[in-house]
Every structure is written in C-alpha cells, then in structure tokens.
C-alpha cells in the first residue's frame, strides 16, 4: 500500500464513536491498529470471524491420515515387525502417534497460516504506521489507492469532523 491516510485517537470510546461516524459517511476503513483488543471493534469495522479453525481442521485431518496410514504401511508392508504377540496391523498401538501427528500438523497449520496471512515472521517487510500504536494510540488506516485528490480532501474533512487527531497523509 503506497497511498494511505492515518488518523489516531487517544481513547477507545472516541475511536468507536469516530469509526461509526466515518463509516456512516460511506468511507471504507482499511484497518484499525490498537495497543490492546477493543471490545466490539470487530463488529464496528465489519470483520468476519477468523477462518483459522478451518485451517486447523484441515491440518488435523491431514495429520490423522498421514500418521495412521504411514504406520499402517510401515508395519504391514514395508517392515513388518512382530512384537508382544500383536498382529502386524495393530490399530490401538497406532493411536498415540496418530493423535500426536494430528495435533502437530494442526498446530503447524495454524502458526504458519497466521504468520503468512498477517505478513509476519522472518523476512517480512511491514510499514510502521505510527510508532505509538503499541503504546497508547488507536490508529485508523484508510487506503487511498483508488481515490482522486478531491476525494482525499473529502475524507480528511470527514475524519476531522469525527474527532480524529493527527491526520497524516502518505501519497
């Protein structure tokens, strides 16, 4: 994102109030950056529920299948080993490893999906919009990619009316 506008608030109540005003003017808020989770913010900016659980399920299901069938293949086809008078295809003994594989792959899937989706982790480049968003500022971020100059002025006016402090333009 090369063209954007940021504005900050000093209080979360003002932020929620301001956001409602901005959005009622038909301006799309790209993101809101806060130092701590703000109650009801996800509803105000219309965030969908995280789909991380779907990824966790896919990872877990994959882990279950890989864990189970790999053992089944090893102990019946590749290297059948007689132990404790058990049959080669001994389902109960496969269960612990199957379970661990399910948990492991689900956890990996969550962590990597999270890092990739949020553009975090080693090697990622992120813009720091305001150095104080991890301290005490609540920042509103609005993308200006598709906006002409006169529209930008309009957005600025709306933000000022909505009580935003410190509006910064990056064009």
């Amino acid at each position, binding site marked *: 994102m090369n063209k954007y506008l940021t504005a900050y608030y000093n209080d979360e109540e003002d932020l929620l109030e301001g956001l409602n005003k901005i959005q009622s003017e038909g301006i799309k808020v790209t993101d809101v950056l806060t130092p701590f989770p703000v109650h009801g913010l996800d509803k105000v900016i219309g965030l969908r*529920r*995280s789909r991380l*659980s779907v990824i966790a*399920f896919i990872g877990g299901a994959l882990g279950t299948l890989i864990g189970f069938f790999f053992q089944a293949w090893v102990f019946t086809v590749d290297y059948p080993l007689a132990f*404790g*008078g*058990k049959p080669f295809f001994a389902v*109960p*003994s496969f*269960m*612990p490893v199957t379970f661990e594989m399910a948990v492991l792959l689900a956890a990996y899937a969550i962590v990597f999906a999270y890092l990739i989706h949020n553009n975090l982790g080693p090697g990622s480049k992120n813009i720091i919009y305001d150095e104080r968003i991890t301290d005490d500022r609540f920042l509103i971020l609005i993308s200006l990619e598709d906006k002409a100059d006169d529209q930008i002025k309009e957005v600025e006016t709306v933000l000022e009316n909505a009580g935003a402090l410190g509006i910064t333009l990056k064009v």
Partner: protein
Amino acid sequence: MEAKRFTLNKKTWIILLVMIAIGVVSLLYGALAGPGIKRMAANLLLNNYYFLSLGLIGLFFITAHAVSESGWHTSVQRIAEAMSSFIPIGGVLLLVFFLSGGLHLLYEWTNTEQLDEVLQGKTPYLNEPFFYIRTLVFLAGWSILAYFIRKTSLQLDIDGERKYFNRLRVLSAVFLVFYALSSVISSWDWLMSIDAHWYSTLYGWYVFSSMLAAGIAMLIILLYVLMKMGYMEHVNTEHIHDLGIYLFGFSIFWAYLWFSQYMLIWYANIPEETVYFYDRHLHFSGVFYINLILCFVVPFLALMTRNSKRSFTILIPVSVLVVIGHWFDLYLLIMPGTIGGEASGFGLVEIGTTIGFLGLFALVSFLTLAKAPLAPYKHPFYKESLDYHTHY
C-alpha cells in the same frame, strides 16, 4: 431484578409421576415375573449410581466455578443446584439397596465363606463393615455439603452480602477436595469391586469423566426443557455455547481416559487384566461399540463447529445421545461382572427402570427449582454473566 419463579404445572407432575410408576412397575415385574431379581438388582445399582452421579456433577459444576471465580455459570447455577438436590435421595436409595441384600447379591467378595486366595488378600479393604463406613462417610459428606452450599447460595440471594460469597467459595473448596478423593474411592467400592479380582488405577478418573460428560449433557437437557416451558429467559446463546464447549471437551476427555485404560491393558497383555475386556468383547461387543460411538464419535464430530454448539437443534440430540451413551458405559461396567454374558440382556425392564429413575430425578430437580428464583440475581457475578461474550 428478580427472575421469574418456576412453578411445576399439573401436566408435568402427572408425566413425572407416571414415569416413576413405570419404573416401579418395571422393577416389580422384572423381579417377580420377568428376568429375575439379580438382573433387576444390577439395574437398580446402575440407575441409582448414574443419577446420584449426575447430581454430584451438578454440585461439582457449581463448586468448580465458585472456586475459579468464574462468572458466566451463574445464569445456569440454579439448574446445577437442582440437580445436586438429588444427592441425599439417591444416597438413601443406594444405602437401602445395599442394606436390603443388594450387596450380597451382586458383589462376589461379600461371600466370605468361599473366597479364593486373591480375594482373601483383599479382605483388609473389601470387608462389609469398612465398606459401609466408607459408603456412609461419602453419602453423608456429599449430602451435608450439598445442603450447606445450596443454603449459602440462597442466602446470597437475600442481600448479596460478600460474607456469603466467600463462604460459598470456602465450602466449594472443601467439597472439591472431598469429592476428588471420594469420587475415586466410591467408584472402586461400588463399581470396580464387582470385578473384585481385577483392578485398574485409572478406573476412578474414568468413571468420573464419564459422569462429568453425562452430567453436563443432562444440564443442557434440563436447561432446554425449562426454556421450552418459557423460563430461563436470561440465558443467552453465549451460555449455551459454553455448555456445548464443555460437552465437547469432556467427551474428548472421556475418550482419552477410555483409551489410556484400554491401551495399557491391551499392550501389556497380562491375562488377569485382559480378562476384563475379553469378557466385554465376547458377550457385549454391540454395547462396547455403541458406547464408543455415542460417547465420543457423535459429540466429537457433531459439536466440532462453532454453530452446532450454539444452537439447540444440534446440541439437544447430541446431549440425549451422550446421556444414553454413558448409561451404556455404566452398563458395561456393571453387567458383565454381576450377571454375566449369558444371563444379561437389554429389554423393556431396563428401559422402564431408567424411565422411573429419570422421573424421580426430574421431579426432585423441579421441586428444588420451584423453591427459589431461577437466577441468582444478587450474585456478584450475575451481571457479568449477562454481559458475557465468547470471542471466538
């Protein structure tokens, strides 16, 4: 704001009394004309233990939340209290059952004339006087603590004094410590000593986890019944969601303990241990798999998504299946050791007895519910419970 009070209407009274009558008739028919007195005694023990444990889980639900100072549970606290009011009644019934010959009929170790070497070695623990002392201590302890916890909870309703809140927490902590020991030991005494030669160190926890899942399922069902009757309007989707999470989680917990016990016995392959599963697999293979499917596969798959935990349309069928599944779990624990593979069965007498106990349990719970407002509206955390949201 005081919540609506519950009144037991005439129709429900009649239904519950008919259910109890069905139970009594089934018991009498089964003992006198049907499959015999031994099978009915085993049935009585099963249902008595089951519904007594559901009551205990109600008390466990309150106390665990009181100690952890959680807030959301206060919206359904009265239902759990109502469940716990069955403890003294179930306790008396169990004691009467043991004293009137049930003990001698079902437990091999009470036959002191014909004990083999193994059971003779266990007599310091498994003898009748000590058994009755333990039974009395547990039943009395539970009943007394249940009475005082309920009393304190009602006193809290009068003016919401901090004193009663603190007392509730102290009583809860006492109960939890007592219950941690007594739930395990009582399951050894009343259930595991049926197979007196066999033992498992996981048994107490296994039974507890089974009853915990069933208790939460019963709590959900009672909540649903009350909401259908037009009560409990302060309960919202978030509370139902949390109960669904409990049901989901404890079902997995049960499966974990089931498998832990099974795999160790299967792996070690020692005859004196494997005989337990051998018997259950030989004569009860149907129940064996039904139990696993109803208690683990169904809740695990059906309650996995968020929406299914939040809607009664899925939660209620699953809860009913889980309650039935854990009944079969107890069936597997009791029947093979008492009446054996050939003589045991599952028929109308079993269903009738269970309906009778369910009627009695529901009647006692409803009568307790009618004694107080349906919400602890002066509980310090009640407001928090109403504002509560799950953020995932």
